[in-house]
């Protein structure tokens, strides 16, 4: 494969090539290559320790890869930027464990995430404009928390926190959403509603979903990438991937 030279424009929104990272000698990611097209929704599965969360850490700037290329929008090298810069480029992240601001109201959680200047001075003298208030109201409607806006986020149930966090991602209006196990700990009903919500979001955003729940991925109905020991084991539609002998071997043990 030809190494991408600076300034080269790929049509992919996200482009990872030959990425490796190790922690104290343990290779969490080895030679990972992955591309996400604009508007694409991709599911990523893999057994524990396959490097799914580390991959998200690399994309969002929390972890720097030892070698490899990570390009966003064809020409921006993500390995040179920090978390805040990457977030402001338009990459949003939802954590595995729902992480909302417990001591803020639900509305304030959305306000903090809302796409707006993030500097000290601009937040000190911030006034929420009517259009921005409307956007907040819309998002509260989408995640079905409009009636609870004055409640503290800490008092929400686990499933509602997951939605609030997805709502915060929407408020950021990112080009790419990284969603780590959105259905973890949800009831079947909530899982189904979450799948609908994500499909709705995927209409005008690119989304990467990391998930263990096969039923949930089937409901999403998108291309699947299987990670194993830090690199891509298989890629394709879910039926094709789950028929792959290597994948079955990895998942069921050898």
């Amino acid at each position: 494969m030809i190494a991408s030279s600076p300034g080269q424009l790929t049509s992919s929104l996200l482009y990872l090539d030959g990425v490796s990272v190790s922690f104290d000698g343990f290779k969490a990611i080895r030679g990972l290559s992955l591309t996400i097209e604009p508007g694409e929704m991709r599911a990523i599965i893999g057994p524990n320790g396959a490097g799914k969360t580390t991959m998200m850490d690399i994309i969002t700037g929390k972890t720097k890869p030892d070698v490899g290329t990570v390009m966003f929008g064809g020409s921006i090298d993500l390995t040179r930027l920090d978390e805040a810069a990457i977030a402001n480029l338009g990459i949003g992240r939802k954590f595995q464990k729902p992480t909302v601001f417990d001591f803020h109201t639900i509305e304030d959680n959305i306000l903090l995430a809302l796409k707006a200047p993030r500097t000290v001075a601009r937040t000190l003298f911030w006034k929420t404009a009517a259009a921005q208030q409307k956007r907040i109201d819309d998002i509260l409607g989408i995640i079905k928390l409009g009636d609870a806006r004055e409640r503290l986020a800490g008092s929400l149930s686990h499933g509602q926190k997951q939605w609030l966090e997805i709502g915060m991602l929407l408020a950021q209006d990112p080009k790419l959403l990284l969603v780590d196990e959105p259905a973890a700990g949800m009831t079947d009903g909530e899982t189904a509603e979450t799948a609908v919500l994500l499909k709705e979001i995927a209409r005008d955003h690119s989304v990467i979903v990391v998930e263990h729940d096969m039923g949930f991925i089937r409901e999403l109905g998108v291309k699947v990438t299987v990670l194993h020991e830090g690199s891509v084991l298989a890629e394709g539609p879910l039926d094709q991937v789950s028929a792959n002998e290597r994948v079955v071997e990895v998942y069921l043990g050898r």
Partner: protein
Amino acid sequence: MGMYLMRQIGSRGTYGNPILPDFMVFLNWKELPWYWYGFDSFPFAMLMVLLAPGLLAFVFGWFAFRSRVTGVYLSIITQALTYALLLAFFRNDMGFGGNNGLTDFKDILGFNVQAQATRAALFSMTCVMLIAGFLIARGIVVSKLGKVVIAIRDAESRTRFLGYRVDRFKLFVFTVSACMAGVAGALYVPQVGIINPSEFAPANSIETVIWVAVGGRGTLVGAALGGVVVNYAKTIFTSGFMAPYWLFALGALFVFVTIFMPKGILGTAQDWWEKRRRPVPTTTPPEPAPAEGRA
């Protein structure tokens, strides 16, 4: 402020030197060190009251927050810094009077610092500054910036992934609080009449933490209330036969407040008031555990 007051003594010092403060004459210094220049001017001294601590906090905070030093490590480093300053200022070579510090003040803006009227004016000024400080802090807390700062407190890495430069927000509040501390110090010196390096002692920072704990954590009024209550207790305690036991009393107060009044005076009073008005609480308080992203 002490430097300004020293320069105001002029030739009335014991050695009668119009320029050099007494301790410098005593140490056989020939001329005023460069960093004492300008302190004979009140406006310049007032500017420095804000600028010197602000700048120190800015530089220190810049490095500490950029390196992502947080929590108890930050507390330890700030304590180490003030301890280092304490040792440095104790040296006579530093040019701030060594362990005697700066004292023997005569007047401020031409008024005798010991006169009743001057003291009343200084006390009123302190109240005005307390209100001003409260209003500034209040403005910050209710702004969106205040919300960001609370968000950083509860889930720092989440805030970072939302695109906020956490270090800059920390640096801002750290620097603002340093400037406020500078104003407090400038008001303290003429009213107490002496300033020496022992004020750098880490115990002082711990006492400030106790003020906040006693008054009520997470509130602005509580911090001021705690400051008044603890210092009033200090005045009573340290001026009688109980004087040797003041530090024990302070420690006991801290333990008592932590165990029996975790929300401080203000929080406890609020809870009591709420209970009287509305016997059944309807909202469940959120768990206080800070939620962080997975490592």
